[in-house]
């Protein structure tokens, strides 16, 4: 069992970072929120709607319409240009959200590309742009449907410090501009604190700490301190 007794409530408009060592189930938790995995027990409510009770893909899709996700590798579609990737959720998801004409789609995508400084890359394919720009395109694609909740899976893993900081700046900027509720999955400490109102640490399948970044820094829990300080010796065993 990867996760057990996980209980977390996220206030509207706030951003929570879920942190913990590799292999503790952070990404599993994200997939549970997206309805890609189904828990054996328990419930996950998004805007009051229970995704764990949604049996059909159509019912799940209705709830997924409230979500946006920025994947670790941005998960852009290789065969589509930057413009087409950003337009994708507006043109391809059927029966969810407002139906838009081609002209409206073009206007919205153009506006989104402009607001994230991506206009010059509109005709490029993902393989032709840097990872930092790909993340920005992924962000634009997530935001185009005006999601209520935005999920970030390891947003700056594998990036150099400058690009990593650029991604965090982008997350902060977009939150100010679009006002979503955020869930950031990360093991990058303390960098992730700059985009978090609250931090919850996952270990052995459940949360061992939950509070503001300042509270976590002052935590007396030895596992939290070991993780924060990157010590090898301590209760957390390296897997």
């Amino acid at each position, binding site marked *: 069992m990867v996760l057990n007794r996980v209980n977390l409530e996220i206030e509207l408009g706030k951003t929570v970072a879920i942190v913990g060592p590799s292999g503790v189930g952070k990404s599993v938790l994200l997939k549970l929120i997206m309805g*890609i995995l189904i828990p054996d027990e328990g419930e996950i409510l998004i805007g009051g709607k229970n995704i764990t009770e949604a049996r059909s893909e159509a019912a799940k899709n209705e709830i997924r319409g409230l979500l946006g*996700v920025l994947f670790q590798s941005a998960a852009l*579609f290789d065969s589509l240009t930057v413009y087409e990737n950003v337009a*994708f*959720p507006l043109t391809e998801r059927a029966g969810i959200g407002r139906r838009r004409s081609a002209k409206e789609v073009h206007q919205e995508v153009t506006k989104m590309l402009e607001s994230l400084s991506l206009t010059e890359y509109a005709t490029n394919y993902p393989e032709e742009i840097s990872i930092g720009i790909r993340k920005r395109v992924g962000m634009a694609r997530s935001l185009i449907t005006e999601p209520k909740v935005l999920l970030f899976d390891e947003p700056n893993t594998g990036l150099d410090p400058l690009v990593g900081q650029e991604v965090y700046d982008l997350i902060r900027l977009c939150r100010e501009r679009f006002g979503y509720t955020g869930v950031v999955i990360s093991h990058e400490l303390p960098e992730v604190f700059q985009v978090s109102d609250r931090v919850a640490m996952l270990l052995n399948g459940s949360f061992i700490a939950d509070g503001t970044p300042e509270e976590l820094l002052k935590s007396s829990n030895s596992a939290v301190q070991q993780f924060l300080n990157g010590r090898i010796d301590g209760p957390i065993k390296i897997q």
Partner: protein
Amino acid sequence: MNNVIALPERVGRTVLDTIEDWGRPWIFLLKVMVAMVTPPFRLRLVLQQILQIGVNSSLVILLIGIFTGAVLAVQGEYTLAKFGATAYTGSAVALSLIRELGPVLTALMVIGRAGSAITAELGIMRITEQIDALRSMAVDPVRYLMVPRMLAGLIAVPILTGMCILIGILGGYIVGVGLLNLSAGTFWSQIQSAITPTDIYSGFIKSFVFALIFGWVACYKGYTCGFGAVGVNKATTQSVVTASVAVLVIDYFLTSVLTRWFMP
């Protein structure tokens, strides 16, 4: 006591896992079939896939068709000459191509060329989280990725088979008449008298079934691909081997059934 309970539990778990492993591809096929006949329909994606699977495979199919027909003419003439029956070379070439070699060779070539590409593409989409991204955007991957590929296969493979057969007969004609000095009139008249509509139906049914196997195996293996480059490598190899073996095995059973039930 624990051992007494543990053994049946282990056996039960193994049986259930096996049933699940066997059932999963069938559930996948059922989902694709249901999605094929229910809206929304994505014609643009189907046309794109017809281009990938059909149009881009046509040159290689024409090549194998013409040389297979040529080889059949040489072999047929050699064998039939022993019985003084070289006049039947044309009908031997055409019957072999229509009933057997056209559908089977086309299916094997499409599996090798397009099936492996589909599995690799879907596998990479799986490991780079593109399929998860589709689901997170409330786009059903079965409808968006699998249905266009399987539908395109069902449309393109029978057409490619027809092309393979026609060009194969032409190859047989060129070699038989042009190089082996058979009579052109006899070549064509023997084909006309030997081929019946049931031969053509039989070839068409086979190509349709093989197209289903090609699309099903390629999409399922890609969709359920394991982790990393090794996972994609394994899925692609399994896809080609499984589909090719399945085509040859099912060909035997189809031939038996079609010959027994539908041939005069």
